[in-house]
């Protein structure tokens, strides 16, 4: 469980997150919103790239904001990026093994190989990532996110730019993450079909403010959400 209270982020005069308060319980949760709504900023706060102006983040009883960014990965925060960040010079195995892990030695190697197998990437672990296509690279990133006993997995538009069949495969992988790792998974994506296929609950951000949250089907029918996405005039 992760409790966010009154989270505010400002870049100069721009308020990117405006007093966001939200609780993510468990399983896979969606976070959606139009461009510039503050979704990636929220992830950047959780992974430590951005220091919020105000607010607290409590994850499973730990004050996340008090940890240095590289320590958050050791604590169990994982994330993928909007633009895929698999390391080209390294093998699939090394790309996954670079993540912080409480495991050591043989247990760690087994955990890394299990993560590679879990995402179903279907290439030998020693293949160089530079030789892989974008879909496989996304899977390498997801494998990195599920290795090393994560507690909080943040996926930032993992399906961006993927063809349909690869998105379907990815959806199955993401849906299984809470069961595979026991981690709370938060998915940011524009693809509503992916979000409704994967997430039990969904929160909606617009201009840095939380405008709806709850069961995914109900949220997607919410009139505020329709207005934010379709731009209906306020009355």
């Amino acid at each position, binding site marked *: 469980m992760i409790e966010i209270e009154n989270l505010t982020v400002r870049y100069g005069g721009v308020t990117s997150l405006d007093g966001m308060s939200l609780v993510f319980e468990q399983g896979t949760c969606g976070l959606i919103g139009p461009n510039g709504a503050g979704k990636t900023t929220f992830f950047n706060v959780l992974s430590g790239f951005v220091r919020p102006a105000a607010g607290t983040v409590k994850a499973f009883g730990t004050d996340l904001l008090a940890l240095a960014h*590289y320590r958050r*990965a050791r604590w169990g925060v994982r994330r993928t990026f909007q633009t895929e960040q698999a390391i080209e*010079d390294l093998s699939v195995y*090394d790309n996954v093994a*670079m993540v*912080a892990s409480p495991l050591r030695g043989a247990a760690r190697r087994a955990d890394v*190989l299990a993560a590679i197998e879990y995402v179903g990437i279907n290439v*030998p672990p*020693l293949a160089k990532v530079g030789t892989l296509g974008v879909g496989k690279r996304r899977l390498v990133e997801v494998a990195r996110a599920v290795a090393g006993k994560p507690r909080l997995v943040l996926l930032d538009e993992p399906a961006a730019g993927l063809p349909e069949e690869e998105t379907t495969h990815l959806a199955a992988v993401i849906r299984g993450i809470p069961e595979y790792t026991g981690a709370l998974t938060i998915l940011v994506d524009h693809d509503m079909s992916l979000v409704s296929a994967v997430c039990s609950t969904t929160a909606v951000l617009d201009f840095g403010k939380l405008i709806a949250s709850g069961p995914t089907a109900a949220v997607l029918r919410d009139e505020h959400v329709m207005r934010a996405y379709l731009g209906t005039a306020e009355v």
Partner: protein
Amino acid sequence: MAGTDTKSSAAATVAGQRLALLRRPERPVHLSVTVALVLFALFALPELMSAYYTGYMTLVAIYSIVTLGLGLLVGRVGLYSLGQGAVLQIGAWTAARLLFATGQPFPIVIIEAGLVTMLIGTVIGLPAIRLRGLYLALITLMMAGAITVILATVNFPNGGGGFTGYDGQQSHIPPIRRPSIAGTDSAYYRYAVVVAILMFILVYAHLRTRPGRAWAAIRQSEPAALAAGINTTYYKLWAWALASFITGIAGGILAGDAHYLYSINFSTQDSIILLAVALMGGVYNLWGAVIAALLMQLLPAVLQNLGVNYAWLTILFGIGVLQVLTTAPTGLADQFPKDMKKLGGLIWRLVRRPQPGASASASASGGAGGGST
């Protein structure tokens, strides 16, 4: 051969993959060529070379360590340093001072010189925590200039007293000593090659394990490295410390090689030439460091022997860097085997066309193709 390797592990079970990972049966041809070249350099070369070339090949061994450190910084971590010449000077100065002042065995002294250089070199690398690219190169160049000026003022030790160990009045200057097992030039050449091999193994071990992964991640994407829990500051400084350590050791070997050190022999320009030859040799491949050292030390010697003014080299290096950066950004070490493979393939196709009587030349071209891998 990498193809068959990957195919077999694709079919294997997890247990098989685990085994493959532990053993990593990597490129047997590559390994045997490496071993053959090392044996040749250690046992055959000293017998074949004249005293003139023995001296220069010792310098090649020494400078291959320096370009190895520079290649590590530039190629693996993405940190451009124009200060490695100065780092080498610090190692040479420290080793010379210790060799005059103490009776410690030579290997202990060069390790101490490496450690002192590591400390100072890491301080030079501190700006790298925040800076990259051109700005980092500029700052390290200025630091190199400052160190060169300082060492020109305090002078290199010549057996005098005090902290600097320099005595300008001294009429008889004792030579900097060498290890007892490597008194002669050809023995000292072997000694330098062995030290260089140890340094290459040290760096290779780093690249194949956690620091190597961390450096590759930092070079491509610092956010990804941070998100994976890599303390980027720590690993950048580690790279700087390792590069400085091995460069300091190279400085120690250089002190014993030269017997007499003078500040006039070191210039800030050396640091720039070092980066140029490192880029030409190839910073993404360990062999690149050897090629870079050959370019920097052996090529001038060969030209001098042929009666060509080696000032031409500066122009040649300029053209070389331009050529490498535009046509083969991974340097000669990566490009040369590819070209040889292409050439081998070309010859192979040429000799295969006339079917009869081609067996003799076909086997020759096969040999060329095999040697290039």
